[in-house]
């Protein structure tokens, strides 16, 4: 399977993992140089894993069936309507929301070959555009989302199609335009608010915490706030401390909001659509380094379930829980681990708040060992909360303490070497699994 990592123009590094089959980039001089670099052993992460890459061993992400019977045969969606209340039970949601974890048996255009290939940022754009076509109340607001097309091109072309009011270029005032989005949501619109970088939303904390999270409650249920707050976050390539923040740590305690993190073009589009349709305020975390991931996604419409985790690779020996960019470091480590004889189960938790304790719990009950790999800092991150939740709910099933690999509690340094040491690398993941599985 192909994973293409191309970082944004600001960053001049490309890591290419390709199967022997054709990748357009390999034929470019740049691509060839990079490919040679990778296969020569240099590059990010555990180089050893790359030389022993076996595509057949890795199961397609977001296409795997859970052992528990899920008989969804269709990957089509219905908007949450009156049906939703009748069958909320996970696993019986066939007619409702497509569960990405269910799709191996389902025949979608992507699996039957037609589908269409696109990059993650394009998938986000497609999801957004489809929802804007579907409902004229959906609008976008943020800095440079309109004429500029979005600093990561997620809203490219939308202002031309929908106009300057529906795709609103705001001045630089996060607190005010986030609050404006909230006020608009209270009065009938469905804004998608973009933080150019998630870190900038620190300036909107007042609005996100007090108004976004709380107004539905303090108004006694009178006003709903169906906003989507989205943007890129996470550690990039030498972007410096302030542009490399993980806001999910800070927002997770806010009551009344949901948080999801996308990691593939498939779930990016699905989560974007689900978030827009949700009546709850949803914060969608994208990652700066994942925008150029390429994948084939179905032609037919689908959405992903906001509250469910995604089974990336079923296994028996250990449960590895991760999300966003760290998923790829985990999968890279998984290759090494498989060659060493381990069988890790990898779950992309996707829903950072609330946690899908069903998928996670089933896995823990099977493997009895948990490793959490996250990009948040050690202190107070999603991993810290998840560790607590697992200990609380599944203590009896654990054969070893829950281990959590997080980023160092340091402001992300600019220097490349230092930056690499602040985030979790595949080699550390391999060591941790070996340790846990002793």
């Amino acid at each position: 399977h192909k994973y293409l990592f191309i970082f944004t123009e600001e960053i001049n590094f490309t890591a290419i993992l390709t199967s022997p089959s054709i990748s357009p980039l390999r034929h470019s001089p740049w691509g060839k140089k990079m490919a040679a670099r990778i296969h020569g052993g240099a590059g990010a992460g555990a180089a050893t894993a790359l030389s022993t890459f076996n595509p057949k061993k890795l199961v397609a992400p977001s296409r795997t069936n859970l052992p528990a019977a899920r008989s969804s045969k269709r990957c089509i969606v219905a908007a949450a309507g009156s049906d939703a209340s009748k069958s909320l039970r996970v696993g019986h949601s066939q007619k409702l929301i497509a569960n990405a974890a269910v799709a191996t048996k389902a025949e979608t255009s992507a699996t039957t070959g037609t589908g269409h290939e696109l990059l993650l940022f394009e998938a986000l754009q497609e999801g957004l555009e489809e929802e804007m076509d579907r409902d004229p109340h959906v609008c976008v607001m943020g800095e440079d989302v309109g004429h500029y097309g979005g600093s990561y091109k997620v809203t490219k072309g939308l202002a031309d199609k929908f106009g300057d009011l529906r795709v609103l270029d705001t001045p630089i005032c996060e607190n005010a335009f986030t609050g404006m989005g909230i006020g608009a949501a209270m009065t009938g619109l469905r804004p998608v608010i973009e933080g150019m970088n998630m870190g900038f939303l620190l300036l909107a904390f007042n609005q996100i915490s007090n108004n976004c999270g709380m107004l539905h409650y303090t108004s006694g249920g009178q006003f709903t706030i169906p906003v989507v707050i989205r943007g890129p976050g996470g550690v990039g390539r030498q972007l410096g401390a302030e542009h490399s923040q993980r806001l999910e740590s800070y927002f997770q305690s806010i009551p009344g909001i949901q948080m999801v993190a996308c990691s593939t073009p498939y779930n990016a589009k699905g989560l974007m659509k689900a978030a827009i349709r949700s009546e709850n305020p949803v914060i969608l975390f994208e990652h700066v380094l994942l925008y150029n991931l390429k994948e084939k996604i179905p032609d037919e419409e689908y959405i992903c379930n906001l509250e469910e985790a995604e089974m990336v690779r079923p296994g028996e020996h250990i449960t590895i829980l991760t999300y966003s960019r760290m998923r790829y470091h985990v999968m890279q480590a998984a290759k090494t681990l498989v060659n060493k004889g381990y069988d890790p189960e990898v779950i992309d938790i996707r829903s950072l708040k609330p946690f899908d304790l069903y998928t996670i719990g089933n896995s823990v009950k099977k493997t009895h060992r948990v490793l959490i790999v996250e990009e948040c800092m050690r202190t107070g991150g999603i991993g810290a909360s998840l560790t607590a939740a697992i200990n609380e709910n599944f203590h009896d099933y654990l054969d070893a303490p829950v281990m959590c690999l997080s980023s160092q509690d340091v402001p992300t340094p600019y220097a490349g070497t230092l930056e690499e040491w602040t985030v979790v690398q595949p080699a550390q993941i391999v060591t941790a699994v070996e340790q846990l599985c002793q």
Partner: protein
Amino acid sequence: MCLCRTLLIQQIRGSSNAILVKEKKPTNSLLITKEEGLVLYEDMILGRSFEDMCAQMYYRGKMFGFVHLYNGQEAVSTGFIKLLTKSDSVVSTYRDHVHALSKGVSARAVMSELFGKVTGCCRGQGGSMHMFSKEHNMLGGFAFIGEGIPVATGAAFTSKYKREVLKQDCDDVTVAFFGDGTCNNGQFYECLNIAALYKLPIIFVVENNLWAIGMSHLRSTSDPEIWKKGPAFGMPGVHVDGMDVLKVREVAKEAVTRARRGEGPTLVECETYRFRGHSLADPDELRDAAEKAKYAARDTITALKKYLIENKLANEGELKKIDDLVEEAVEFADASPQPGRSQLLENVFADPKGFGIGPDGRYRCEDPKFTEGTAQV
């Protein structure tokens, strides 16, 4: 006050930024009809009686926490809100009881909310500082100063969006009320910029009562004339005597009409005064007795009463007090039940699936304990 002078906002042609505020010569035509006069009077009297009752109830232990009373400022609320329709929106601060009442929320609902009862406008979940009403488009009630202004800007944005994108017939305006202290806050300036930039149908009303708890406006503000800040952003800035409901109403008419016509926002600074402390917990020792006496002499209710009688619009008998309405509200609130445990987890999410999936595979909101309010979420 037998002849009311009006402040007019005039724009100098060719320059949308520079605004002249002129005083019109007194005329003999009256500013209001009898009906309008009675509406204004009743609204202000309701506000005053209600707040006085709040003070009593607080000291009797019927309500708790931070309660901020509006006594003295009624002219601003009545002057503006009585010009609005039901679909216009109002955004306020923690000093919001009277704004809610003027907008049409029943005294019963507000009093019950203050008592923390289930029949309160927010089911007892908001309290004094969070008066909301979807029916009357009262968009809150905010505890932190300034945080309501962006929300008001958003409501105004929706109005413009409905007109221009959804092609609906919508000329709803939003009125945002806030104090002098807020005018040093970033959110205020950010929203002035946004509103003027997008020509939003919003009126920013500064209730300048000269004090932010114990901080005098003059000690905290480099240029204390707040109305001047409007033209800096490209909107008219007006200063009006906030102790005179008829003057406020004249200015409000102009500002609301501007907004409805799509001409954009207005900043109105109302010079007003709160007769009581910042909140019921404030001993109010810093303010000068002479200052308080000066403003007490300009009590808007007394002034309007005098105006109505002198201009033969009403007589004493018609200007009766409306204590019964407020007393009835207290009785109703007293008799109402407290919220049950089942209410704890409701309303956190509009879609309670947001509490997620539990270890047993069911959504937590499907757990019967959820509706009982005892579920582990």
